[in-house]
């Protein structure tokens, strides 16, 4: 009776680096909440699992099949993307050598083999790394394939895609029976750049585990040094250097403001250099990788959170920021801006306006108060339970059509 989805995932907390793992967990938990059975296939080996979280999910109804492959999830992706951006036309084989490409191949082969005896009603993949495994599983079980797109190769590489990955992505998406895009922004990109038919794509925004904002210190606007926060991987995609440009403008008018850049990534040395060149090194703190609880503290302390992404399919950090009461300035080139309406929006490249938005948020307490007071309504409409319910409706429709 109960619905069974065979899901191919890549990241999963605690082994995750970006939003993909968090989203995957939210979807799995949401589906379990609705009584669905979930068999989740992950690439990490048991040693990297730190077991507890995922296994406990297994105990409440999902089976976790761990594929014995040693893939470093996001980091290798990013360093790879960086190399693509700088080296351009380097052949894939040399870039990847024996890591990412080969790991994906191994994941695909082993995952297919491992799930031979699973009897799913539907197959659900998360991003290109798991697509081929999903395609094969769907074929061998004779079940429809739903491809969930959290990010495309174009987002990750600032539109300088690796041809091999993009081809794989494209072929997988073409074979999928239906596509779930994490935003209208991503749907448009899939239609425009990948030529996917519009009616094959359903937009489903990511959700949150918090259906209401959390308690926060009182904001009376009297801090000696108001804090403006960036949190994310230090990659081209996240637009962090636009944040530094905007910070310089803010600093010119408000030297009391402190900027925190939290997160790690290959751009770090370059960003530090830039903060010196722009004369704001003394006002800018590079916090490095932060734990979840450190992130929460930063969100709570921030008078303004900025997400300047160049191309952001969703942007879960924005949801986290509003959950902790931080007023947000968001790149218009993001999916999350479609649902986080209590934000000031800017084009990522318009650093003058970005600075102006930050300065306005810092000056105007009524603006901060109003933005905060709207968060409850927004978060309440975006729980993973609700979003997973919508996934089940998508499953129903896909099965009916297949």
């Amino acid at each position, binding site marked *: 009776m109960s619905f069974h989805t065979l899901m191919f995932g890549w990241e999963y907390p605690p082994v995750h680096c970006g939003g993909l793992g968090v989203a995957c967990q939210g979807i799995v938990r949401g589906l379990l909440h609705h009584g669905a059975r979930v068999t989740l296939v992950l690439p990490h080996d048991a040693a990297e699992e730190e077991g507890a979280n995922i296994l406990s999910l297994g105990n409440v109804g999902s089976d976790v099949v761990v594929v014995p492959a040693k893939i470093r999830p996001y980091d290798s992706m990013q360093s790879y993307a960086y190399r693509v951006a700088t080296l351009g036309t380097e052949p894939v084989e040399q870039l990847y050598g024996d890591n990412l490409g080969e790991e994906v191949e191994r994941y695909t082969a082993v995952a297919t083999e491992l799930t031979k005896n699973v009897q799913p009603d539907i197959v659900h993949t998360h991003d290109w790394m798991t697509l081929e495994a999903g395609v094969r599983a769907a074929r061998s079980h004779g079940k429809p394939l739903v491809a969930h797109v959290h990010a495309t190769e174009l987002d990750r590489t600032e539109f300088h895609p690796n041809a091999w990955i993009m081809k794989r992505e494209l072929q997988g998406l073409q074979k999928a029976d239906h596509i779930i895009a994490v935003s209208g922004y991503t749907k448009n990109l899939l239609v425009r750049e990948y030529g996917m038919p519009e009616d094959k794509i359903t937009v489903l925004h990511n959700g949150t585990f918090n259906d209401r904002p959390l308690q926060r210190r009182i904001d009376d606007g009297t801090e000696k040094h108001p804090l403006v926060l960036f949190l994310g991987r230090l990659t081209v995609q996240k637009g962090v250097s636009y944040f530094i440009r905007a910070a310089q403008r803010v600093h010119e*008018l408000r030297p009391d403001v402190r900027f925190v850049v939290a997160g790690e990534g290959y751009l770090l040395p370059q960003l530090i250099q830039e903060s010196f060149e722009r004369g704001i090194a003394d006002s800018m703190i590079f916090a490095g990788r932060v734990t979840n609880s450190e992130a929460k503290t930063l969100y709570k302390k921030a008078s303004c959170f900025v997400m300047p992404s160049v191309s952001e399919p969703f942007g879960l950090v924005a949801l986290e920021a509003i959950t902790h009461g931080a007023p947000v300035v968001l790149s218009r080139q993001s999916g999350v801006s479609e649902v986080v309406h*209590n934000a000031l*929006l800017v084009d990522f490249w318009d650093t003058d306006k970005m600075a102006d*938005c930050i300065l306005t948020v810092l*000056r105007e307490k009524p*603006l901060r108060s*109003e*933005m905060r*007071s709207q968060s409850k309504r*927004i978060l309440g409409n975006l729980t993973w339970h609700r979003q997973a319910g919508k996934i089940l409706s998508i499953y129903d429709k896909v099965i009916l059509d297949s």
Partner: protein
Amino acid sequence: MSKHSHAPAVCFYFQVHQPYRLRDLRVTDIGQLKQGEYFDLEKNRAVFQKVAEKCYLPTNALLLDLIKAHPDFRVAFSISGVFIDQCREYGPNVLKSFQALAETGRVEFLAETYYHSLSAIFSWGEFCEQVERHVKTIEELFGIRPTMFRNTELVYNNEIAEVARLLGFRGILAEGADHLLGGRSPNVLYRPPKFRLPPAMRKSIARHRIHPTSVATIKTLLKNYRLSDDIAFRFSNKTWRGYPLTADTFASWVASSGGQRHGGRDRQCQSVNLFMDYETFGEHQWADTGIFEFLRALPGEFSRHGIETLTPSQVIQRSGRRPCDVFDAHAVVSWADTERDLSAWRSNHLQEAALVGIYSLEHAVRAAEDPALLDIWRKLQTSDHFYYLSTKYWNDGDVHKYFSPYESPYEAYRRYSHALEDLRCTLEKLAPPLKAHNS
């Protein structure tokens, strides 16, 4: 005629208004701006010209035809002062077309606050000055001194009605809000409850008197919002039961909405008051919805159903000295949103900060004695600025969004708060704090 004797009359009033929208102001502009640089000249011109093409010019031409063709057809307008200013800047031909309508003698012009402001809520002195200026402008342009008052967005309460009476108006317009009607018809005249304002306030209002004498009882005309909204909001809604609405059907609805002719109010003049934004014709309801054909056919269908059209002051004349029921608006009612109160302009932190911010400058602006500065301060009072700050339904995406020139209420606030900061800054430069001298 006798077979139609039960039919009520119809009273049309159209609101004509455009605000001065703000440009993309920046923090770095503050203290650097020349006076009046807050406004987005190109955007305001573009909107004005677009709406002139789609609505004002064609609808005025149509009304002129209808008035010539139907000897009994009449309408009323309330044209905001800032709209007239924009006519002068962006489209003198639009102003001429309203003057042509005025020359027919069958169009009434109502009085309002020149700047389409919410000054009635914040400053009676400011309110009276704006009404005075508006009346003077209307009289100069259209040759008639208005005797009827309608406040911005039909914002109304007992006090506003009493102030309008003291100013010398004979009638005032209001929303026929269900909770105040309590099942009574909006189609008859009402009056506010009798009470006296404090002598000092009466005295200061008297200084701004529009007409030399005040009537003993001011009459309140109520908007029949169901029939008004059938045209203004539902006309092109394909999921609405009444779609597609023909002039014949609408006239028959009006004819059958009289109701109480033989009841307790058998001697009352019944008028269905159809109050709406003028932009309904061609802008909110585009030409391809058939709205112009509908309007063109209306006077004929009204005659066929024995329905007269009257202007607001005619409705009052007809009722003579007959007693009216009390319409007791202790709290504010308006025609906005489903709440029909002030919440469209004053229900969140942004709106409160903007409203309090702008009205708190009154003293300093007057002290500066600079007409240009006074004009800018007043342009920032236009109610639209506060409407754009509404977050009530923002998350659901709704009419506020449709009617806002800005991307969001937060963006609207960014611009407005910069303008306010600059105005503060300018005033401080003109009059450095005087307190030290006073003490």
